[in-house]
């Protein structure tokens, strides 16, 4: 296979992992960075691995015109968007494919991104494939009578389920970011809430459509990691992961793979069957829609053990490593320490076949991923700024740390947390043969971690680690 030159249109930790994967696969790469990011680890690594010519200074990571201009200037043949920025922007993917000098977009094809990028549409597709989704409307409701009927049905459904406090979610279909969304606990107030939301949406979003759904409390957030080859015929999954430990802003903090561990914990329902069902549904849906790269099917599982598909993330995710670390592929010895899902993504994205089936994928042990984020758990997880002076940990064979903070690298200098980007500092993944061992190793890592900084960042970072440590005890318990 001919070597490609891949433009890495991202920064930080993910850029570094893509970079390593490119080198591992024998592809050339071009790394971009902004002025404020010049000290970041990914720039350092690119300089180390590809020399100065593999680096390009840009004004913004978010200007597609500039990225394509860079791609043309350095004759790139493919572009990897990472996560965030352009990863789920089907227009970017479409432009990469349709422009006069096409670039391979390493990710699903643009049609797939568009179809699955919209939650309501995903719900519709899922329903057409008999994949379970959250009870409620799968299209914007414009009619009050219809809305009331639907709410009535949802309350009755919850009644039947034995849920004492039924709750319905009313949200503006054009809304987002928590605007125009309200919970209703009884049918009498529903009408007025519906009207309020509808009027809000009409006035502020100029779209009257309203969605009505069951509100589910105390659910577990599970994800299925799927990988499929170009053409969309062949798809496998790399197991599940549980992302239920989140901060207030729904930012995931700890992820565990697999999603449930019926071997060491007891659940009120058949956890093994749930895991089986969601992976089966996910792969089935991926094949049906012609999914053709890596992606994540996000599920919620109610306390009763009912899975509902929430959305599909058509990109590589931050927490892909935790699924990778428990997966092995038979006949591929290099995967004995886990599968590098990013390498797989690049390989599949460039058109190589999968080369193995679901039978050859084995899941082994338990992985836990910690996200170390510069935000303050004591202050409603507000992001904080500051300077990191020391960042060190004890290397272990069962531990992987991904970070762009140069302080952690040999000869690293103190690092000022940039204010232009999300405050993610590092990802740490531990692996254990079973849950107990993984939890023990996780605690060991966190206790041995040295992370100090100036006062603005120092105290929040310490609370952060304490928060992670405290939550390690309770993961996977329902």
């Amino acid at each position: 296979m001919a070597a490609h030159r891949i433009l890495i249109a991202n920064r930080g930790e993910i850029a570094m992992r893509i970079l390593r994967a490119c080198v591992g696969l024998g592809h050339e790469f071009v790394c971009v960075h902004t002025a404020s990011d010049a000290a970041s680890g990914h720039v350092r690594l690119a300089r180390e691995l590809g020399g100065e010519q593999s680096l390009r200074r840009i004004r913004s990571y978010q200007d597609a015109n500039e990225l394509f201009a860079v791609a043309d200037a350095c004759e790139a043949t493919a572009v990897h968007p990472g996560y965030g920025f352009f990863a789920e922007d089907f227009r970017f993917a479409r432009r990469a494919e349709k422009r006069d000098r096409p670039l391979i977009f390493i990710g699903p094809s643009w049609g797939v991104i568009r179809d699955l990028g919209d939650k309501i549409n995903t719900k519709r597709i899922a329903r057409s494939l008999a994949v379970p989704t959250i009870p409620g409307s799968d299209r914007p409701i414009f009619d009050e009578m219809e809305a009331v009927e639907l709410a009535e049905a949802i309350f009755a459904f919850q009644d039947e389920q034995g849920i004492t406090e039924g709750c319905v979610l009313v949200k503006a279909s054009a809304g987002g970011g928590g605007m125009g969304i309200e919970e209703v606990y009884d049918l009498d107030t529903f009408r007025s809430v519906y009207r309020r939301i509808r009027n809000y949406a009409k006035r502020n979003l100029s779209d009257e459509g309203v969605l009505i759904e069951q509100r589910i409390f105390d659910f577990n957030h599970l994800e299925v990691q799927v990988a499929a080859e170009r053409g969309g015929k062949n798809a496998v999954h790399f197991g599940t992961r549980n992302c239920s430990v989140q901060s207030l802003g729904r930012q995931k903090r700890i992820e565990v793979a697999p999603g449930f561990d019926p071997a060491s914990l007891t659940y009120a329902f058949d956890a093994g069957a749930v895991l089986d069902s969601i992976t089966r549904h996910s792969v089935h849906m991926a094949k049906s829609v012609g999914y053709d790269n890596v992606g994540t099917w996000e599920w919620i599982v109610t306390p009763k053990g009912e899975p509902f598909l929430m959305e599909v993330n058509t990109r590589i995710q931050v927490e892909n490593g935790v699924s990778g670390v428990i997966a092995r592929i038979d006949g591929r010895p290099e995967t004995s320490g886990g599968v590098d899902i990013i390498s797989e993504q690049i390989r599949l994205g460039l058109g190589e076949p999968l080369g193995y089936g679901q039978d050859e994928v084995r899941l082994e042990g338990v992985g836990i991923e910690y996200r170390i984020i510069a935000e303050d758990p004591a202050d409603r997880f507000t992001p904080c700024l500051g300077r990191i002076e020391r960042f060190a940990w004890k290397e272990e064979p069962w531990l992987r740390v991904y970070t762009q903070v140069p302080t952690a690298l040999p000869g690293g200098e103190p690092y000022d947390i940039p204010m232009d980007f999300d405050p993610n500092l590092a990802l740490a993944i531990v692996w254990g043969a079973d849950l107990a061992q993984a939890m023990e190793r996780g605690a060991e890592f966190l206790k041995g971690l040295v992370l100090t900084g100036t006062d603005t960042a120092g105290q929040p970072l310490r609370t952060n680690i304490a928060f992670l440590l405290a939550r390690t005890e309770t993961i996977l318990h329902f």
Partner: protein
Amino acid sequence: MDIDKRTQQLAGRLAYIRDIFGPRENASVAMLKHRLEEFLAQAPGLGMRELSQQVARLEELFSLLEGKLENELCPMDRVRIVRHPQRICLKDILENVYDNYTEIGGQDEWSIDPGIIIARATIARRMGKKTVHQSVMVIGQEKGHGQEFRNGGSIKPWGNANALYYMRVAEVENIPIHTYVFTPGAFPVEDYPGAAQQIAKNLYVMAGLKVPIVSVFSEGGSGGAEAIALADRRLMLSHGYYSVISPEGAAAIEGGLKDKASPELIERCAERLKITAFDNLRLGFIDRVIQEPPLGARPEHYEFFRELRREVVRATDEVVHQAQSLGPLRALAMRRKKRTADPQDIFVRWQLGAKARHALVEQRYAKFRDMSRSAFLDNRALGVRLSTALARGLWSVHSLLTHDLLARYKKRFSGLLEYVEAEMRALGQGVGGPFTLLSGGRRGVPPETLECLTTLSCPEEGACRLDDVWVYVSPKSREDRTLTCPNTATHGCLDLWAPDLFGEFAGVCSHCGHHFPMEFHWYLYNVFEFAQAYEFNTAIEAGNPLEYEGFGLKLAEAKRATGLASSCITFEAKLDGISTVVAVLASPFRGGTVGAAEGEKLIRAVERARIKRMPFIMYSHGTAGIRIQEGTCGVIQMPRVTMAVRRYIEAGGLYLVLYDTNSYAGPVASFLGCSPYQFAVRSSNIGFAGPGVIRETTGMDVPPKYHRAFSALSRGHIQGIWDRRDLKKNLHQALLTMGGRNLYYR
């Protein structure tokens, strides 16, 4: 003494003649000049008797040659005559034609707009020994022999608004209106009420004014003239001009708006535009020409004023006579005396009865409907014409039956059904109540409702992606290039990729919402459902009625390039299940200008909508105004279409106007601007005259964004601004909420 005065007068006459003929060499003028100089040179040596003989001979020569020169006047000379400061003005007319008058629109410069004079005047008529004073409302532009503050008779919007107010007063008082048109054009400012919008309002109101209106044209420049000239009788002074644009303006456009047009070109344009009184009489836009003294009427021509008085009285009499029959004897006398005797001998009361007031408006509509009939190409075969007329009649009967007669019974019947049903329901609840209580049954939810929570809501469509792909995609979306939004500097918009911008985004900047121009086809197919529409009026084609030199070629080129027969497309379409009549003004065809063909098409479309009880949507994809090459044939479309629109609105329809890109001048100042429901697509411009024209005519610099839709909205000219992507939704909303009582789907 007397001789001095007379010589001075002769010198004055010569100066006037030389003003009129301008730089042109003319043997007669040279001869007059020579003779007068000769006389002046030898005058000191002559005796009194000799002098007076010589002067008398000179005066005779002057009169003779003035008569001769009269025949040599070219159109541009006539323009110079009406613009000359010595030309009669409205004050002269008020003083000399009417018997008494009071100015009510202000005094000299202390007026809301000194360019317009509004006065209540009386004309005394004799009936035997009794004198009857008949009141009229006199409205007209005043040039005031060059008084600066009169603004040359160029009327500001508020002046027109004031005129309109007093027209309404006249209607209440039931007295005729005499209007005198002495304007080179309206003053193109947009301040409230706005030049274009106010003229549109004037036209709309005058179309239905229930008193006789007689107007007299001296200088009729385009929209400014139309604002007060929609009349039952339109008279014209023999040296006047009446046109869509001043010859200078036409020449400037012809010359490509680059630099000042040469005098020769202006002369040629004046010739081609057919602006003189006799041209207009021949084309049927005016009813009568009032003969002026040679080389134009000046204030000292008292005989002329008497003639003018006779003519306006006769015109008013005729209008009244047409609307309501006089006594048989007077009618006979009138017919017999026709043009010979003084019309004032036969007394006609100018107040109209209730019935006649209605008839008058109908007659006015019929009169304008008949104008410019032959100014476009009608390619329909005779059979088609007949069948169209027949279909029209059948539709009228059909609408009458279904909407007026049957609908009433249907309403009554359904009302009865509802009543019975509601009663039965109440009965069922009253009786059933106790039983349900007994059985203690909680109201269950049927299983099929429960099922709908987790199954697909539209299974028949399979994977059920709600496709938001446009039916028509602009060819501009096939180029791999980026465009810069004009708001980048202020809003920081990133450059847009053409396939995204003109495809999915419908030409709207995704960051700031700026609308890039789109082809009219985009609207036809994506908004107005043109693919399923029935297009009518296809056989009507734009022509070259004045045989304007060189225009035929340009027109043929436009037809070839756009594939259209005129700038107007009319069709019947179903928008969300509601049948509507849609008219589109397409800017690629000669800038979306409106001429006789477009006017006719619009009138037919409006009438169709009226007969079939459908909403009428007018989408202006951009219009540069009236097609100047059609001269008065074009400008007459302003009142014509406005009248049709008024009839439609009064019949209870919905007339909705949608502006896009740039809409200027005549159409905005008439049938577009008169709609009570005017909306604009974002980033469009609406106004009376473009910034360049304003700078040229008024000398003032317009602020940026002067004509922007948002400015128009805040001035109150339009009612809302719509996003291009939401047009369909907003139109549907409009169809459900706006409009009169007579729409079939209500």
